[in-house]
């Protein structure tokens, strides 16, 4: 019980950066899962709904894992 309580308490002081990263990875997994299921890319709303989260929170989380934009890749890949 001490362990759980400690976990809960620590949980409250988790930094947003970490939680955003977790959410973003989960969102990408959910996207893959839904894409395979329907053979079509899901919208952000469908992903959020599947995750039981708000659309805005998922969108913000995705910003947290953006790679620095490469000026070369987008055009040629």
């Amino acid at each position, binding site marked *: 019980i001490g362990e759980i309580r400690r976990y809960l308490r620590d949980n409250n002081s988790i930094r947003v950066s970490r939680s955003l990263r977790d959410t973003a990875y989960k969102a990408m997994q959910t996207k893959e899962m839904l894409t395979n299921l329907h053979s079509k890319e899901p919208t*952000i709303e469908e992903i959020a709904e599947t995750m039981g989260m708000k659309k*805005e929170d998922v969108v913000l989380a995705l910003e947290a894992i953006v790679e620095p934009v490469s000026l070369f890749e987008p055009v040629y890949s």
Partner: protein
Amino acid sequence: MKQINEMKLQIPGKSANESFARAALSAFAAQLDPTIDELADIKTAVSEAVTNCIVHGYRDEIGPVYIHAKLYEDNTLTIKIRDKGCGIPDIKQAMEPLFTTCTTGERAGLGFAVMQSFMDKVRVTSKPGKGTCVVLTKKLLSKGAGNA
């Protein structure tokens, strides 16, 4: 076309705000329920435009970047990104792929090309000494997986 929502944002042109501008725009675009790929396209184009204001428009100073986004009934999103920096003397030349005035080799001269490939329309107006304005337009097509 009927406008359903809009937002105006003003931020100091410092590089930390490139990511903030991207996040704010994706939160705004999320109203149209895009796919992650569509959002990524928008974010990349916004990044390029905001970066241009910061590194070219204002160069060594920090000036304001103005963003005005609008959503229309037919799922079209327009994003106007404006600075009051040095301006572009020859827009046609500036938009040519690989053209850059950056001499350090850090920039590839592909910013406008990226905007053009990721958005439906890119309109640039500029006045040397007054500033530059880029309007990005994209119509979102996503209908989602569930309601195909």
